[in-house]
């Protein structure tokens, strides 16, 4: 094996320190594009210089110094920027001096999820600024054209600079709302569907972001809740992502990633000690109930019903309401589940696939004559071929009219 090559050290530094370095560089100037450019130049310099002169003792410090110098050069070349920028550079340098102790990433993350930033841009912004992902990769993960994603990011970064968004922790009174926005943005990167299945997104990167956040604010129970939730869902990918669709209640629990499940359970327990329940802890607790089935051999429907009821209080969503109704059906109350579905807005009742599937199940349970027609509607509304195949097996092939 031997010592790692200069290229390997640079790559490692890029992976581990990107967000930290960018946060330090951008904190003084609030100019993300410029900081990104300076950092890219520094990494390029490293690849050029380190193989010849050897890897420096403190690679991160080296990169920061080179990027800082680059930043002041970039500023000097940009004539449209007034003399005030000199002061900003000075401030950036002051910050960089105490950089190694103070982690500016939390401020950077709060800026990315700032209420003055378009919600659709928050998740990509965070993936790019904290983890250094490029726009094309983010675009692919979210099925958005690369140009659209690039534009969204450029616009958001321009707002950060031109509006002067604050690179600092929010005031205590704003913290709960701002934290909720940030957690939402991280969960957005995970790309989970309503039922914990995953089609899109960057789950590993989202888990990484949550870990970064947890290290920065270890006392917040909802951060633990979010990380636990994502770990539970991620743990099931081997049981879920095969050629054939297997619903959660029928998955082979031995295929679940044990380490991730254990970590999730520990996080959830730790979170509960804070005595402040919230949306993500609630969602994680629901996942935990499903995991318990692997141990007890039986799904605790009563616990699920309680938790889904709580979730609709903390975070009312259509997906959550359908999931709640689905639990009522499993409890032997298809009539009640149907009544809950009927409360949903028309567009959801007619167009939301999970609601259509549940309706078909309930009508079949009740032996109603409309059941085959409901099953047909559910299958036709299903986009995922694996799920469609599963439903065909369950309900029989829909009759063509």
């Amino acid at each position, binding site marked *: 094996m031997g010592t790692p090559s200069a290229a390997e050290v640079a790559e490692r530094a890029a992976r581990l320190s990107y967000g930290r370095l960018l946060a330090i560089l951008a904190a003084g100037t609030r100019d993300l594009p410029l900081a990104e450019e300076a950092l890219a130049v520094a990494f390029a310099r490293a690849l050029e210089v380190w193989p010849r002169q050897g890897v420096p003792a403190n690679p991160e410090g080296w990169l920061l110094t080179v990027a800082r110098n680059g930043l002041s050069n970039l500023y000097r070349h940009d004539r449209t920027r*007034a003399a005030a920028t000199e002061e900003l550079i000075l401030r950036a340098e002051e910050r960089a001096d105490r950089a190694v102790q103070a982690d500016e990433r939390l401020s950077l993350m709060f800026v990315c999820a700032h209420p*003055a930033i378009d919600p659709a841009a928050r998740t990509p912004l965070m993936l790019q600024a904290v983890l250094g992902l490029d726009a094309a990769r983010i675009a692919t993960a979210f099925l958005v054209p690369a140009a659209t994603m690039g534009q969204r990011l450029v616009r958001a970064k321009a707002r950060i600079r*031109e*509006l*002067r*968004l*604050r690179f600092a922790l*929010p*005031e205590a009174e704003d913290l709960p709302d701002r934290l909720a926005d940030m957690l939402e943005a991280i969960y957005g990167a995970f790309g989970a569907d309503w039922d914990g299945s995953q089609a899109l997104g960057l789950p590993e990167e989202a888990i990484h972001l949550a870990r970064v956040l947890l290290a920065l604010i270890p006392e917040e129970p909802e951060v633990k809740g979010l990380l636990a939730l994502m770990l539970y869902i991620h743990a099931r990918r081997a049981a879920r992502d095969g050629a054939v669709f297997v619903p959660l209640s029928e998955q082979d629990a031995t295929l679940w990633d044990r380490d991730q499940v254990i970590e999730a359970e520990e996080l959830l327990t730790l979170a509960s000690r804070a005595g402040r329940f919230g949306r993500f802890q609630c969602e994680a607790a629901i996942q935990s109930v499903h995991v318990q089935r692997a141990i007890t051999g039986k799904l605790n429907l009563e616990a699920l019903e309680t938790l889904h009821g709580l979730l609709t209080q903390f975070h009312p969503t259509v997906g959550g309401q359908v999931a709640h109704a689905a639990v009522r059906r499993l409890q032997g109350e298809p009539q009640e589940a149907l009544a809950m579905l009927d409360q949903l807005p028309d567009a959801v009742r007619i167009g939301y696939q999970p609601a259509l599937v549940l309706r078909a199940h309930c009508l079949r349970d009740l032996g109603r004559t409309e059941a085959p027609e409901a099953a047909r509607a559910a299958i036709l509304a299903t986009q995922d071929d694996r799920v469609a195949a599963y439903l065909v097996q369950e309900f029989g092939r829909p009759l063509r009219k």
Partner: protein
Amino acid sequence: MHYMLMLNETAEEFARRTDPGETGAYWGGWNAFIGAMAQAGVIVKGDGLQGPTLATTVRIKDGKRHVQDGPFADTKEQLGGYFVIDVPDLDAALDWAAKAPCALTGSVEVRPVLPPMA
């Protein structure tokens, strides 16, 4: 940095200005808000405006002057006043905007002021 707070008020709020039963509370609210900003030393300039019934809008079309009585757009909220404040960042500007009495009933639009031309 300078931000303008554009204070948009509803018709009901404009009416409170002169309603004998409401006028005290209305102006009391604004005076408290303006006093707090003055005390913090953030005000660069600012004015209250007469209501939209006293607005006159001018446009030049085909070289001809078109004058219309009333505001440029008939919306539920109309500009009732403005302040330019000097604060370090948008977050601070939003904090002041949220304290304006019309944030409860109408809205406050916040925009950075263009820096002077070089």
